């Protein structure tokens, strides 16, 4: 084979690579919702709409910040049409940087107004809730923890776990606590966690594993982690913390349309699809997400948003708090 043939073949191969699919009939979504949960829903959308969905998922370890940072890194030339976030706070990072285009979906009308932006820059649905996972073998029923503060209880020294607050839903949780308690109390609490030798896990999934195996007595994670643990027949008790105090934190998943994206029409269609009640119902069924709509049926064991006391938060303020506390938090984590 001579050089010219090789060069021709190579060019052909590269064009094959470059133009693998037709550009117009597709939509690109970056999501920090677990791939296991989100992918089947995206496949359904593909079937119903005839559009091809190209997705970027997050790795567990960099949960929701990896994808977020890719969105920021690509700001000069946006690749994604939709950001489907696993929490309601990170979209604010993008909104503040002007990377989001407002879109009021017709399907958003059933969602309570406290869980969506009035200008449509973000819309929440199917939420996760921050709960305590307790190992029944290590913790007798009479001694169940009831508050987030129990993570720092000296009774459970070295026996509690929390995921790295630089990533995932834990970031939001910590920021919400700081927003509610104020800086001083917030820092004191985190410091007391360290003093109590609480385990800093790499992810909520790891917290779940640690509790399920009994390596720790209890830890804080999300409702879908709890549901997974239960389905794996782990000896777990689920506690909605601070029911007679500040309340339990609700974290809706959200969708936002990206500004300047390659396929805005497809993006809107995807958002409309995701905001349908069926999707909320499905997420309640498969991933124990808490529906925000009052009329969505839930399987047994899965609460609805109205069934428990929710923490009162202004997500925008929590977002600010998140960015503000970053440097201090990095120091606290150590790297």
């Amino acid at each position, binding site marked *: 084979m001579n050089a010219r043939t090789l060069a021709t073949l*190579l060019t052909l191969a590269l064009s*094959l690579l470059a133009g693998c699919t037709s550009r117009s009939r597709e939509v690109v979504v970056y999501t920090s919702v677990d791939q296991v949960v989100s992918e089947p829903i995206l496949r359904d959308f593909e079937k119903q709409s005839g559009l091809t969905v190209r997705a970027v998922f997050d790795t567990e370890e*960099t949960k929701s910040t*990896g994808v977020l940072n890719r969105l920021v*890194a690509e700001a*000069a*030339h946006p690749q994604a049409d939709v950001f489907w976030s696993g929490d309601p706070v990170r979209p604010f990072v993008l909104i503040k940087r002007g990377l989001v285009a407002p879109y009021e979906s017709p399907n958003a009308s059933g969602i309570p107004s406290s869980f969506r932006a009035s200008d449509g820059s973000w819309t929440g649905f199917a939420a996760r809730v921050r709960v305590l996972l307790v190992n029944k073998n290590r913790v007798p029923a009479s001694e169940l923890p009831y508050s987030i503060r129990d993570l720092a209880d000296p009774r459970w020294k070295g026996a509690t776990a929390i995921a790295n607050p630089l990533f995932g839903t834990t970031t939001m949780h910590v920021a919400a606590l700081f927003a509610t308690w104020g800086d001083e109390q917030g820092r004191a609490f985190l410091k007391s966690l360290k003093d109590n030798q609480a385990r800093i896990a790499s992810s909520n999934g790891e917290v779940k594993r640690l509790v399920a195996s009994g390596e720790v007595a209890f830890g804080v994670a999300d409702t879908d982690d709890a549901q997974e643990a239960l389905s794996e027949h782990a000896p777990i008790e689920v506690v909605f913390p601070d029911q007679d105090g500040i309340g339990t934190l609700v974290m809706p998943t959200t969708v936002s349309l990206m500004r300047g994206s390659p396929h805005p029409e497809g993006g809107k269609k995807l958002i409309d699809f995701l905001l349908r009640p069926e999707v909320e119902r499905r997420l309640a069924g498969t991933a124990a997400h808490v529906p925000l709509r009052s009329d969505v049926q839930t399987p047994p064991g899965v609460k609805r948003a109205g069934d428990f006391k929710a923490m009162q938060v202004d997500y925008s303020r929590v977002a600010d708090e998140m960015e503000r506390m970053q440097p201090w938090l990095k120091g606290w984590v150590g790297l």
Partner: protein
Amino acid sequence: MLVAAGTVLVLAALLPLLSLVTELSATGRAALAVLRGPRPWELFLRSTGLSALVTAGALVVGVPLGVLIARSDLPGRRMLWLLHLFPLFLPPFVLALGWFHLFGRTGLLGTEATARTLFGGAGVFWVLWLAFTPVCTSLVSLSLLGLDASLEEAARLVGTPARVASRILAPAASPAIALSAIVVFALTISELAVPMFLRVDVFPAAVFARLGGIDYAPGEAFALALPLVPLSLLLLFFERRFVGPRSFAVAGLRGMSRDPLPLGPWRPVATLAAWSLGLVSLAPLLVLLVRATRGGGLQELPRWVGRAPWTSLLSGAVAATVIATLGLVLGHAAARRSRGATALDALSMLAFVTPAPILGVGLIAVWNRSWTQAVYASLTILVVGYVARYTVVGVRAVSSVVLQSPLHFEESAAVAGARFSRRLARVVLPLNLRGVIGGWLLAFVFCLRDLETAVLFYPAGREPLTVRLFTLEANGPPSVVAALAVAQVTLTGAVLALGVLALRRSAR
């Protein structure tokens, strides 16, 4: 032609590194402040220590095993080599997954104690040592097979087999030993997925995690990676000094049937030891297969695997072809000591030992512009990433073969009026075809097994199989994840089998 090849390499590998230097100077002091605390240095020492340990372990076992395989009468040596070598071509993460299904808490042979051992430094060492020892074994074997038989025969007239092995064979393989040490060290220190999975904090993983911090600061990530730069340069220095442009090519494995050194009374022990090692390496793969079958993972596989295998194969094949072509030009230039070749060879080595997140961030910075979207938004960016990272494989494979090829064939072609490109295509390439094909195959397999390079910038919806496996591992059904791992193993095995067939065909 060297200029053209050099330009491609510079575009792929040097630009991203340079762009990060500019990032660093932009964020400057704030970025460097991240190095002031003790923790980064703790992690750095831990990483370096682990890599040194794995390297030492690989040498301790790999050198004698390499000698045994190449030159002793160990039964079934060829098969043993194959079994021992195969796991090297898989992402180490797959092997870790297999060990998890064996010794993890819910594993086939798992207990509390085994799980605790696995999820820690000992586990990381075990997985990586088993994964990378074949580098040493193979380079030593290849080196010995290419050794002039008369050197060994002369020694055997006056010495026992043991003395021949230790005083003649092992020293003769010293460039191979040095090179394997460098490669194992480089592979271990940039390994991300295994320590992350086994919950051990290592330095490159911390860098990767920093890129996922809330405020995107590539300058900080680069600053964090700075300590790795002198390390890379040190590796490069060792490589120049102790390895250099030496040849490891062999005409064929016929040398294995050449009159072997008898093991005598040691044969049963050696056989047991060597074969145990070979079979242990395969244990995780078998466990994965078992796990995938139980729990219906294999049946579910088509639903979960998507286009990922096709993505892996296509981007890998194209990247391997580019790498083989670059390898032909640069490897030939390096072997013939052309001007500029040394610098380009060093650049390709530097890109190989640079941690993947650094390269990844730089690649995004360079290629995500409006006029390069055809590259960035397509599989081409994967090809660029692979080329940046693995060109060294092609360069080394070709240069080691060309070194064995007499210069006069090229000179007579020049005298006959052929310009450089024609000489390369019509004389150098055909005469060194096996080396080029070997380089292509090796590059392809490295691309297939890659995780760390691709994970940062793969185009949406077009992840290679390794990335898909990695992202699904955290929350996917375990039997499906095991099935995906089996798919990766099968893919690699198929590519290797076809490649070896092609190599056999090209031997005239």
